[in-house]
């Protein structure tokens, strides 16, 4: 694939991203050559299990992974993110790319009122008065569905429930009207009922402001609810990249197929589930070939030798996957 930005409509273009950390046990490469585009008004779902590198991939491009060795390219509105210094990145984080994390309790300072924290964030980027910023905070809390925002704006984080805190985090994230909202497992710590509320809220915000969303999750249900395009990651690599419906209905990569099969269905009781055997590989000494090869029932000689790259074996430029199987099939 060309190293230059290809499509002209993308807000964010990430090419051949590699992120490595130096750990006491050796070099750990968390992300190995991942490319994706994020477009205005659309949601890219990045799905993967723990340790797949899905969070590191997005955190690294906005400078939130200290001590990481990053290579590849990441262009936001044409500007090279990886070449920026901390001050430039700080100017991007918030108005350009805003983030919501899994655990809202640990993302807010426990000793300051919620409204104060939102106001300070706004004042960090715009020169407005305290009173104006406070008014904006109240409006934002109202937007995300906090009841009686003019009173709750002075509450401390411990006075909010988990769902309300996540709403407050979303209020803070959208305060500067970001072009891209990165939601990193935003509903994992929440109950299903609250999760449904939060997902609905994200959809509304997208419809209204055309915000692009990167939804990072391990839950294919969340992907089915929200994503337009899906990137499946495993052991730091992109395994499959496709629009939402084809990914669910014609998954091509054996890993994606296994992941979809291992979910219990609501409409079929009992019986055995079809798990993926084995467990993810070590990231410090990953297998030389396809990272999924040790768990793959369809693997053959070549899989354990050379890692396949994301390609379009089906001839469909929108549906990419990294697997040697189509070539084996073509050869035989």
């Amino acid at each position: 694939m060309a190293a230059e930005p290809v499509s002209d409509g993308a807000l964010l273009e990430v090419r051949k991203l590699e992120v490595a950390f130096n750990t006491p046990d050796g070099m750990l490469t968390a992300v190995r050559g991942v490319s994706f585009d994020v477009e205005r008004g659309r949601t890219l779902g990045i799905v993967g299990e723990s340790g797949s590198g899905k969070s590191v991939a997005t955190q690294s491009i906005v400078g939130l992974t200290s001590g990481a060795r990053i290579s590849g390219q990441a262009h936001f509105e044409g500007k090279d993110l990886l070449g920026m210094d901390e001050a430039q990145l700080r100017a991007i984080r918030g108005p350009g790319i805003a983030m919501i994390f899994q655990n809202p309790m640990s993302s807010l300072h426990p000793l300051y009122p919620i409204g104060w924290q939102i106001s300070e964030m706004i004042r960090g980027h715009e020169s407005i008065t305290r009173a104006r910023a406070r008014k904006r905070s109240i409006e934002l809390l109202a937007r995300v569905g906090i009841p009686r925002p003019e009173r709750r704006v002075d509450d401390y984080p411990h006075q909010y429930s988990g769902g309300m805190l996540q709403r407050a985090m979303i209020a803070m994230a959208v305060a500067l009207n970001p072009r891209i909202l990165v939601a990193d497992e935003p509903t994992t710590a929440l109950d299903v009922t609250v999760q449904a509320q939060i997902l609905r809220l994200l959809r509304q915000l997208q419809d209204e402001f055309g915000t692009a969303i990167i939804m990072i999750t391990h839950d294919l249900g969340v992907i089915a609810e929200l994503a337009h395009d899906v990137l499946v990651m495993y052991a730091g690599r992109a395994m499959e990249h496709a629009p939402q419906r084809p990914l669910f209905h014609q998954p091509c990569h054996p890993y994606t197929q296994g992941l979809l099969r291992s979910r219990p269905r609501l409409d079929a009781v009992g019986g055995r589930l079809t798990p993926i055997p084995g467990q993810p590989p070590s990231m410090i000494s990953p297998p030389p070939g396809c990272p999924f090869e040790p768990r793959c029932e369809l693997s053959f000689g070549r899989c354990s030798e050379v890692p396949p790259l994301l390609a379009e074996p089906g001839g469909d430029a929108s549906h990419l996957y990294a697997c040697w199987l189509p070539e084996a099939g073509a050869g035989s």
Partner: protein
Amino acid sequence: MSEDVLVRLKDVVKEFPVKTGSGFGRHTERLQAVAGVSLDLKRGETLGLVGETGCGKSTLARCVVRLLELDGGQVIFDGHDLSDASPAALLPYRRRIQMVFQDPYGSLNPRRRVGSIIGDPFEIHAIGTAVERKHKVQDLMALVGLNPEHYNRFPNEFSGGQRQRIGIARAIALRPEFIVCDEPTSALDVSIQAQILNLLAELQAELGLTYLFIAHDLSVVRHVSDRVAVMYLGRIVEVAPSESLYDHARHPYTRALLSAIPAFDPDETREHAAVKLAGDPPSPLDPPTGCRFHPRCPRAQTRCMSEAPSLLPRHGDGPDHLAECHFPLADGETL
């Protein structure tokens, strides 16, 4: 008591003291985490227990295995009332009742070898010689899909799924009849979760186990359970055979919970996303009067505010489908 009932809960109540207020207003209130729960578990069945955070499901589980003292009601195991049994009197029952915990990282001592962790039950109940114990532990490891040669490893050398297998091996060591599984797969990835759910099903078939299976993931509960109980603010609001519960839910709360499950597939056409269950559950320190669900219920009427409904069959359901609601939903009716 009918013969096939292994565990019977009768009006179980559990309260915790909570300090509230500040300065001179500081005082202790009683938080009722479990507010009168009655349930029967039949021998060999899996009863699923679902509910949101803070509904009291884990507290109920700890009451059932008597890790907590009850503040009211009874836990009857195989005809014996364990509610007030002393620790010594409980010991013989501890062999027959076991628990698998949610967090496979927090529930294993990191400084002890896996073989000795799994062998603990034999030591506590003074079963066998050291050599016999080692063999038994290795048999157990093989049974749950661990490599018996890893007997001398430490927990940190195992992945989350393997640790959960260690927890399960320890739980089945004494061949119990009843196991309480408290969110056994919620810390695991989907592909690993399926492995553990299959293992639990195999062990149930092989050893004739009865499970109380607690989880917040309704698709998982549906998959494993013969019957499902739905808990809200310390009360069981609906209990029914799985199929009946998922297809003909009577209680508005059950319907709301089901409608909140994310789609399985992008094209799914379930009653979905349309149902708005507003807000969060109220504080159990000050539960609503009447029906505890009425402040969030779209069907609530004045009667719901004053009069608590009881757990009864509704709309001509059989005695196995009970709902605690004055205005239950009929088949085909939507919230």
